[in-house]
């Protein structure tokens, strides 16, 4: 979308005000309203869908496979597909990189170990059906929900197969399945937030118009313990990109720290809700 010079200047100035005025009257730490549903794909271990009011939609499915631990380098593989973009484009590759690297560095792969030889390998497949703003935040929220609702079949064979080689066998009762992330564990999957910088203000979850006039952007990771890496910057628009000050970086850090906890709480309440598995 192209803004006229007048629109651009009006939007930029109102976002740079103290306090800022966002076009949809949100506060700087407020997300756009979204609708989330979970566990609706019958053939995958966990799934989630998030839709935004502007029509943006993302579906994530988590599948698993039993592999020999020695044969694989990573137990999590993320694949991102964005409609309208080639899979080998820079845009899609960068989304993929961010999701893959945050899960690799902050997901305890020990929970995927089955026996001394075998592990589960998790495949996280993400589809962005429609997006208006940079979809990383949306992808990350959906991935979080999908991982939270993932359950894996219960292992019934012996755990120790060091002496006797044995293929793992599983209970065929799906009610016996164990959640990937145990309900009592302190660990939660990591999240990624997109932050836009306009003037001296920082905004979480920028809309498309806000991105257009933003001077810079940041991608910030969050986990229950606080802000984690990545803490990267990204140009959200190709016009009037400017450098940031240390102040912006610190402000963005505080912003994510402030709203990260609330987002986690909201997502966890969605993940607990077992009723919503019919979406069509």
């Amino acid at each position, binding site marked *: 979308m192209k803004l006229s010079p007048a629109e651009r200047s009006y939007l930029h100035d109102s976002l740079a005000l103290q306090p800022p005025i966002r076009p949809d009257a949100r506060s700087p730490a407020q997300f756009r309203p979204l609708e989330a549903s979970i566990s609706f794909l019958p053939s995958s271990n966990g799934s989630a869908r998030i839709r935004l009011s502007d029509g943006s939609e993302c579906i994530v499915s988590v599948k698993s496979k039993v592999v020999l631990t020695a044969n694989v*380098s*990573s137990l999590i*593989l993320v*694949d991102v597909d964005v409609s309208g973009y080639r*899979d*080998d484009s*820079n845009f899609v*590759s*960068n989304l*993929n*990189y961010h999701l*893959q*690297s945050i899960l*690799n*560095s902050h997901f305890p792969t020990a929970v995927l170990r089955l026996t001394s030889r075998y592990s589960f390998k998790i495949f996280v497949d993400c589809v962005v059906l429609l997006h208006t703003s940079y979809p990383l935040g949306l992808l990350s929220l959906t991935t979080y929900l999908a991982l939270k609702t993932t359950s894996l079949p219960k292992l019934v064979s012996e755990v120790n197969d060091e002496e006797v080689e044995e293929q793992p066998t599983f209970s065929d009762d799906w009610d016996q399945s164990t959640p990937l992330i145990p309900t009592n564990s302190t660990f939660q999957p990591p999240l990624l937030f997109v932050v836009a910088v306009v003037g001296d203000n920082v905004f979480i979850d920028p809309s498309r118009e806000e991105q257009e006039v933003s001077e*810079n952007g*940041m991608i910030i990771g969050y*986990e229950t*313990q*606080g*802000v*984690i*890496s*990545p*803490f*990267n*910057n*990204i*140009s959200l628009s*190709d*016009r009037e*990109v*400017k*450098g*940031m*000050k*240390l102040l*912006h*970086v*610190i402000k963005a*850090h*505080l912003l994510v720290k402030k709203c990260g906890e609330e987002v986690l709480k909201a997502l966890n309440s969605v993940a607990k809700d077992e009723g919503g598995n019919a979406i069509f």
Partner: protein
Amino acid sequence: MNVQDRRRLLGPPNARLLVFGSRQPETADTQTVKPADEIRPMFLKTGLITNANGSAYLEVDNTIISVSVFGPRPIRGSFIDRASFAVEFKFLPYVSQPMEAIFECHNEASKAAASSNLNGRSSLTGIEHKISSFIETSLLPSILLEKYPKSSIDIFVTVIANDAQTNLLNLANWAVNCSSLALVDSGIECKDVVTSGHVRLTANGNAILDPASNSERKAEGVAEAVVSFMNYHNNEIVGIWTESEGALDETNLSSLIEHSKKMSRQIRAAVNSYMLESVHNDD
């Protein structure tokens, strides 16, 4: 009577035995430990690639990077009021990439396609895409794109040699520095020369400038970052890329930025003196 032995192949009569010099005793692998607050020496050269508008070549230890800048080139198609800017970062096919294993090159099909093609793969890997966009984000604020309507500026970064142990962020750091020097060489109008610094923070709060290898990272590193600056433009931060093991708090973050700034200023001084020298040599 001739008694020469005709049944065997004899060497010439004046042949002598080869004598090898005594082997030098192998010197112990004396890996000099770089002081934490120093940058490794680098070699810079511009203008080696003659058919590009600007080029730069950089060597640091075993890392060799070459950058060529093409532009401003006219574009086909509809009018644009400012130049479009693109960066492509690529490892030569024989160079091993850091963290290759984690980002499995997508699927078996693309691997098969790559092996059948003698020139290696046709598309970039995830890491190459990530570094490309980091360089692009870092340089974008400095270039006066509105001076070049209807044109495109392309930067091609090639890693000619690299150690497998070299840290990904360290490589990104040198790639940014080399690219901005190439940009200066091309004569494209810029606000400032972007330089970057790479810093690792240790658990006891010390900062190591320009840490080359990953080896100590797991042992003592808590966080590291590569941050690009426009040093003569209010020290604006134009690129930031951090990796940390655990939580990243504000004090760590600002100390990473401060120390990277220090390193980027040192590199800026080196780049400045190189440019001054090359101007004098031209005269």
